[in-house]
């Protein structure tokens, strides 16, 4: 009788522990998702500040639209794509878990994982789309941006994630890709997609003179941009926390290799600092210093779980020194008007992060597939670059052909706010021409 009572108690305790683990995991991802929303608050402030006053609200509206449209899009298609295509273009059996009329895609007492993982991935998707939004400010049509954001956040990046940020993703099982912080599928794909869009979109009016020299177009509120960038950095703690698989008992990377939150804490902070210092040294510009913090996060993201923290600092420092120069090169040599340096920060930062993991983390074993190698990282860089650039270029080219990509020159000169937004950002400042939407010259 005593044995039976003891067994019953043990069973009750085991059930209680299992429930606690499940609840812990749910709570962890719930708060990671909440923190990731800070990324969007940051992008909102950062891009509004980087816009001229006549475009401030239109730039912000664009960010809000990206968020609002990405949530349902990712529900309808995105999660299914992630589960469906880890082996390439063949639909996996696991795809049934992402079908919108399936039992996993709604409240289910037998499934505590699907909703919370879907939510975290939805915020990754919205982040990916937001990376593009800053680059195209002040001349893209709102509708074109929304369509491109849906394509990037709802389809393209998540296909890359299925290939390279999934325990069975073919880039890992075949080439040993190691990218635990999503530098490839999020940052690189968004950066190269944006590059494709910018080629078709063209520069803002007044950005270049007839002789090819560059005019500086200053945003109207640098302090707002700086605060926004710092909020993005804070949000990345939610993003990177969400990159860890936590089942309530153990921490694993997306590739099922063991890790700890401590590892992420060491290297994320050291990465942020290295990128900031590097960008400060080469630019002395607070905008680039805070962009350098993002460069630092992205540079170290692939190897956050294994780097020695001082090495993470140095990798980020190098990224922080080099990436601003590459942004200049895009502008001056290639005439790419990327208003916030998104292609360089995210696209080229992602390339550097993946290659750095190949240089400094080679030999680490994977659970499935070969060990981490420079060749595997290099090949994956090529895949992510193509997967990002081709859809971005093709879709924006089609939109351009049908006259939907870029706003009318008169609207661009007057300012998108006065033309398209029913409220004013700074109503009391209406006597100042630049604030009132009366451009003195194209660059104003």
């Amino acid at each position, binding site marked *: 009788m005593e044995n039976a009572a003891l067994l019953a108690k043990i069973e009750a305790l085991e059930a209680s522990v299992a429930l606690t683990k499940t609840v812990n995991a749910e709570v962890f991802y719930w708060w990671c998702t909440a923190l990731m929303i800070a990324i969007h608050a940051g992008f909102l402030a950062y891009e509004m500040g980087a816009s001229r006053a006549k475009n401030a609200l239109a730039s912000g509206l664009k960010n809000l639209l990206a968020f609002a449209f990405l949530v*349902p899009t990712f529900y309808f298609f995105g999660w299914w794509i992630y589960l469906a295509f880890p082996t390439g273009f063949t639909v996996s059996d696991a795809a049934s878990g992402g079908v919108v*009329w399936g039992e996993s895609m709604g409240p289910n007492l037998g*499934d505590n994982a699907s909703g919370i993982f879907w939510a975290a991935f939805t915020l990754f998707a919205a982040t990916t789309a937001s990376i593009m939004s800053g680059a195209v400010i002040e001349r893209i049509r*709102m509708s074109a941006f929304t369509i491109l954001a849906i394509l990037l956040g709802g389809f393209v990046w998540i296909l890359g994630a299925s290939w390279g940020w999934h325990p069975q993703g073919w880039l890992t099982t075949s080439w040993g890709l190691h990218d635990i912080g999503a530098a490839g599928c999020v940052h690189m794909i968004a950066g190269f997609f944006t590059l494709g869009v910018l080629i078709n979109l063209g520069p803002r009016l007044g950005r270049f003179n007839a002789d090819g020299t560059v005019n500086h177009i200053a945003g109207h509120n640098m302090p707002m941009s700086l605060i926004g960038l710092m909020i993005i950095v804070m949000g990345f703690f939610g993003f990177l926390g969400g990159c860890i698989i936590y089942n309530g008992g153990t921490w694993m990377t997306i590739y099922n290799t063991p890790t700890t939150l401590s590892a992420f804490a060491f290297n994320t902070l050291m990465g942020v600092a290295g990128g900031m210092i590097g960008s400060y040294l080469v630019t002395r510009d607070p905008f680039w210093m805070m962009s350098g913090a993002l460069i630092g996060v992205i540079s170290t993201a692939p190897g956050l779980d294994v780097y020695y923290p001082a090495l993470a600092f140095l990798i980020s420092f190098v990224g922080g020194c080099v990436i601003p120069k590459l942004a200049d090169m895009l502008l001056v040599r290639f005439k790419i008007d990327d208003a916030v340096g998104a292609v360089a920060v995210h696209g080229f930062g992602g390339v550097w992060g993946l290659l750095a993991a190949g240089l400094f983390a080679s030999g680490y074993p994977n659970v499935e597939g070969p060990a981490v190698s420079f060749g595997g990282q290099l090949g994956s860089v090529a895949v992510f670059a193509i997967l990002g650039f081709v859809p971005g270029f093709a879709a924006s080219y089609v939109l351009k052909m049908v006259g939907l990509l870029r*706003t*009318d020159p008169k609207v661009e000169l*007057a300012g998108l706010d006065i*033309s398209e937004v029913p409220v004013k950002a700074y109503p009391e400042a209406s006597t100042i021409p630049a604030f009132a939407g009366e451009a003195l010259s194209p660059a104003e």
Partner: protein
Amino acid sequence: MNSAPITTWEGAKAYFTFADQPGVLMFISALALAVCVGAIAAMIRHENACVRKANGA
């Protein structure tokens, strides 16, 4: 409208509205998708109207 797929909470799993009627779920999803597409279409119409206004039409 009885949308509940369950009659008791004992052993309940997927309990969201119409969970036992995939056809209804597809219809609702299609409606939600149509709202998104319609919103983008409305956005395009708004932009075109703004351009006409800016050009004095």
